[in-house]
């Protein structure tokens, strides 16, 4: 009993920095954003209580609907591609190969560019009407489109950008792969298991904690996708709002349209959605994630 209490104290000791940060820096702003979501607030004058008006207004807002649509496309198409790509490359780069460090660094480069302003120009350079992709297609006699600037395709170029920046998920997978004891593979080899079998019965199960992490984080990051659209569309979400991601609209409303109240309402709707989504994933994880315990 006494020991348990002492251990509780130690546990809280470990949590202390986080708790201070939570109470001092995080919780307050979160709660005040919840309050602001029920107000008319333009940042410049005092907020004024209006009840649930911000929430109900959103449902008549055409751009809001569009932003939900665009974001869902990004998530549904993009998340599986990002995870699959990252895992494949991580497995590929986990082999014994000369110059691995060099390859890993090269593969990480796109992620290094992150939110660089140069991305906007680069992307037009690749996916523009006179871009690389169309030059490539021209060899086969195909006349390409202006991928970045056509409202039918623009969002897919941003998905491509996200997949191309698989670096961070890749590194996390790589770290997870490294944690798998070599002995397991060795004894499997002795038993004559094929590479695919080893992947299926050793690698995959043992990497599930990391896979769960990457799945949840990729989901959250994709639902919150902002930087790429902000940079490539120069903060407009165009053409025709085809890259108007949810968080981009939220930002525009909060900082550009003098409507922080609605932005806060959007943020809390997003939080609820993500909360539910994550809860579902966590619930199912009981059935497919294997921890060391």
């Amino acid at each position: 009993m006494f020991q348990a209490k002492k251990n509780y104290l130690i546990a809280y000791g470990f949590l202390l920095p986080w708790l201070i940060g939570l109470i001092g820096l995080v919780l307050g702003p979160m709660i005040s954003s919840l309050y602001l979501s029920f107000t008319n607030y333009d940042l410049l004058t005092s907020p004024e209580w209006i009840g649930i008006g911000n929430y109900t207004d959103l449902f008549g807002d055409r751009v809001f609907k569009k932003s939900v649509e665009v974001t869902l496309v990004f998530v549904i198409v993009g998340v599986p591609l990002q995870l699959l790509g990252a895992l494949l490359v991580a497995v590929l780069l986990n082999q014994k190969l000369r110059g691995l460090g060099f390859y890993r660094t090269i593969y990480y480069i796109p992620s290094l560019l992150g939110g660089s302003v140069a991305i906007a120009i680069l992307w037009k350079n690749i996916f523009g009407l006179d871009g690389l992709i169309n030059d490539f297609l021209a060899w086969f006699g195909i006349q390409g489109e202006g991928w970045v600037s056509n409202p039918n395709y623009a969002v897919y170029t941003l998905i491509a950008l996200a997949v191309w920046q698989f670096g961070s998920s890749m590194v996390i997978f790589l770290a997870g792969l490294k944690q798998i004891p070599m002995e397991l593979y060795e004894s499997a080899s002795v038993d004559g298991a094929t590479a695919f079998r080893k992947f299926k019965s050793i690698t995959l199960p043992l990497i599930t904690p990391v896979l769960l992490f990457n799945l949840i984080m990729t989901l959250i990051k994709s639902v919150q996708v902002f930087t790429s659209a902000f940079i490539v569309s120069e903060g407009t979400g165009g053409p025709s709002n085809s890259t108007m991601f949810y968080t981009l609209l939220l930002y525009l409303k909060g900082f550009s349209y003098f409507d922080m109240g609605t932005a806060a309402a959007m943020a809390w709707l997003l939080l609820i959605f993500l909360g539910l989504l994550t809860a579902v994933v966590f619930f199912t994880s009981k059935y497919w994630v294997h921890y060391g315990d």
Partner: protein
Amino acid sequence: MTNSLNFKKLITHLFVLGFGLVMLYPVVWMVSSSLKPEYLIFSDPGLWPKEVTFDNYIKGWQAVGDVTFGLFFKNSFVISVIAMLGNLVTCSMAAYAFARMNFPLKKTFFALMIFTIMLPTHVTLVPQYVIFHSLDWVNTILPLTVPKLLATDGFFIFLMVQFFRGIPKELDESATMDGCGPIRIYLRIILPLAVPALLTTAIFTFMWTWDDFFSQMIYLTSTDKFTVPLGLRLFLDSEGSSSWGALFAMSVLSLIPIMTIFFFFQKQIVEGIATTGLKG
């Protein structure tokens, strides 16, 4: 047997290299653009510059007023290193508590931690600014570093929780039998075995802080406090003429530190675990 193995290796090499070229393209393009004279940057999209000049680097380095880009590098470096150390220590502490210890309210706290990742930062930014302003921390590096020393980055806590939970529990149990308390287990067993996760945290924190434009833009106001992302934006003017050449030149330079750090750390991710000799 060896022949087919070598052939397989060759194929893998070719594949990895070919794909690598696609990945490398942006950097090659950026370097090439940084070497072009200003007027050719947009009119000559080719990778091979028609005319090579280093003016952009000279002009870019001088930045603006009497402030050079070297200062921006120094400022970015200080902030990124503190953020990195802060996240390593405090996030791993919190993660250890979540992954290995029992205490009241554990589930609630964990859910709260995940929640903090989900709320878009744009709406908490202003209230947070008010707090930092009331502490008189605006235009210092404190708003950018103190949160990292207080483990406010739930992402990394969650990351490490997942890795810590992957470490076999028998190790802790046998250590407990030997009379080790939770603190010693954390220091002697968990941390050494989670080196890949720690390095991952270190790399990401450094890089994301290095790249972060928005919060640095909000909190840093005087030019001598500016960081690399803010310095780069000084070259751009959406209405007048921008110094794209200088922008590209300094962007190239700003990649060097993070590329170097990545190169060495990724090696550690691999070797770190091999030397600790983890047994399953």
